[in-house]
């Protein structure tokens, strides 16, 4: 089983999968830390699920709108959806992030209800648009459960670009992000543009969950986003170190999960989550033994 990994690396799709896992762990470690510390798990879930509407839109645009615009024939030669669903998901998740963020900021109460509603509407829109799309939609499941083994080179570049954007923004805005994470009232008094930075943060969450969806699927995005950070949070004494530890843990879980899925021929997204989950439970057990 152990010698399966070097053999597996002979395949381009395995190398792509490993690279994707490692790259996504950077984004999810940084953003996951903020999500866990600032307790934004629910709104992150809302953004991720609303993004499903965008996947539907991507399919619909590719299979129904595009052939219509091109008067048929031209686009139908390529049966694969390409990057349309991913682009749709990005668009939708960014929209959901801004809308949910503004609602959360403006309304005093019931923000969680509204987020829950948008969460469901996003998914419903996605399902209906896919129903309405013509042609091949069988790989839809890959967005629910992930398909790290099908990651293409262009998507690796996309994830890399996202990593760079997140690292640059978080470094540049670190003192403000730390301040709104710890004490929004004080940050407001110090004239930090709290609302604007919060919306930027939600947009970063949106982009992160979209690329993570490719790896572990929509259903398990939140688990992968939060578990490494939750483990790191039990030991880390400052947020920067918690981010670095989350990245390393995320990479480890992805590589181990990927290897197990290859060796046993099981779904990669699920094995990555299971490895993370076992590690998380073990860290809780160790933590309770220590105290």
């Amino acid at each position: 089983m152990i010698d399966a990994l070097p053999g597996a690396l002979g395949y381009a799709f395995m190398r792509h999968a490993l690279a994707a896992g490692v790259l996504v762990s950077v984004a999810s470690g940084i953003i996951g830390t903020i999500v866990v510390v600032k307790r934004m798990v629910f709104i992150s879930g809302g953004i991720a699920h609303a993004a499903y509407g965008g996947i539907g839109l991507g399919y619909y645009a590719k299979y129904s709108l595009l052939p219509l615009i091109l008067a048929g024939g031209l686009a139908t030669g390529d049966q694969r959806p390409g990057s349309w669903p991913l682009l749709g998901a990005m668009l939708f998740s960014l929209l959901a992030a801004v809308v949910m963020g503004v609602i959360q900021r403006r309304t005093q109460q019931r923000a969680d209800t509204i987020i829950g509603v948008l969460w469901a509407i996003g998914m419903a829109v996605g399902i209906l648009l896919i129903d309405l799309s013509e042609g091949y939609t069988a790989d839809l499941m890959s967005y629910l459960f992930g398909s790290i083994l099908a990651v293409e080179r262009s998507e690796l570049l996309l994830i890399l670009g996202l990593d760079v954007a997140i690292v640059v923004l978080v470094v540049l805005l670190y003192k403000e992000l730390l301040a709104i994470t710890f004490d929004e009232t004080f940050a407001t008094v110090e004239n930090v543009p709290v609302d604007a930075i919060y919306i930027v943060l939600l947009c970063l969450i949106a982009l992160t969950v979209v690329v993570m969806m490719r790896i572990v699927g929509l259903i398990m995005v939140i688990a992968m986003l939060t578990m490494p950070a939750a483990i790191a949070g039990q030991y880390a004494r400052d947020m920067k170190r918690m981010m670095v530890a989350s990245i390393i843990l995320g990479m480890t879980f992805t590589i181990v999960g990927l290897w197990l899925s290859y060796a046993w021929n099981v779904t990669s997204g699920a094995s990555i989550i299971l490895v993370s989950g076992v590690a998380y439970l073990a860290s809780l057990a160790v933590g309770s033994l220590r105290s």
Partner: protein
Amino acid sequence: MSDPGRREVISARNVWAGYGNDPVLEDVSFSAYEGDFIGLIGPNGGGKTTLLRVLLGLLPPQRGEVLVAGKPPEEGRQAIGYVPQAIEFDRDVPISVRDVARMGRLGKRRLLQPYTAADDAIVAEALRQVELYDMRDRPIGDLSIGQRQRAYIARALATRPEILLLDEPTSSVDPQASVGVYDLLRQLNDDGVTVLLVTHDIGVISSHVKTVGCLNRQLHYHGTRDLSADMLEQAYPCPVELLAHGVPHRVFPTHQDNGQEEEG
């Protein structure tokens, strides 16, 4: 009431404020002058936190005018060092004491502008003033409530404030630590910082502040040291013991109801 000899740093004129249709502050007017050390007491739910939110520009008044350092609160709050109440269930955030204190420099640095060595020196000095310098690398969650309170004071001091605004500075602190907090405030006040604090704890306040007022929706403040019996009776519907220098010198008649409620 007016004091033309000193600069007016806070001015509230006929301020009404609250949430929805129910004003918590009714027609509040007062002035604070440079060098004042004011304690406002009042029952929970009497509008103490609301008044602070108005002064900090976090809650626009429904009516009336507020000026802080001669400007609207949104600008004038630059001159304020705000110390919130330290509560038991503060978030378990992985952030060091020094990082908390350093947030006091946020208002002096723009977006994308990192903290400077001068900021670090100011933060270190603030931490020394509250005797937390040796604990600067500890996570804030490891500190006791009293220490956390001092960390918040250090954060406020790091803003280099003209005015210190404190919300229940000693509410969950043991008596010894609370004396320490007031000694520190006294010292800062001697150095020229105007101090305004709100609390429901009459006992500890009257022996430390220069002037007192009572706030229970309406404000009774005359810029004097003594609390008159009618001021207190208007503010408090319940029994009150007034202490000065640790000795009770006035006790008001006991009523039956003890209707204090917790404030959010």
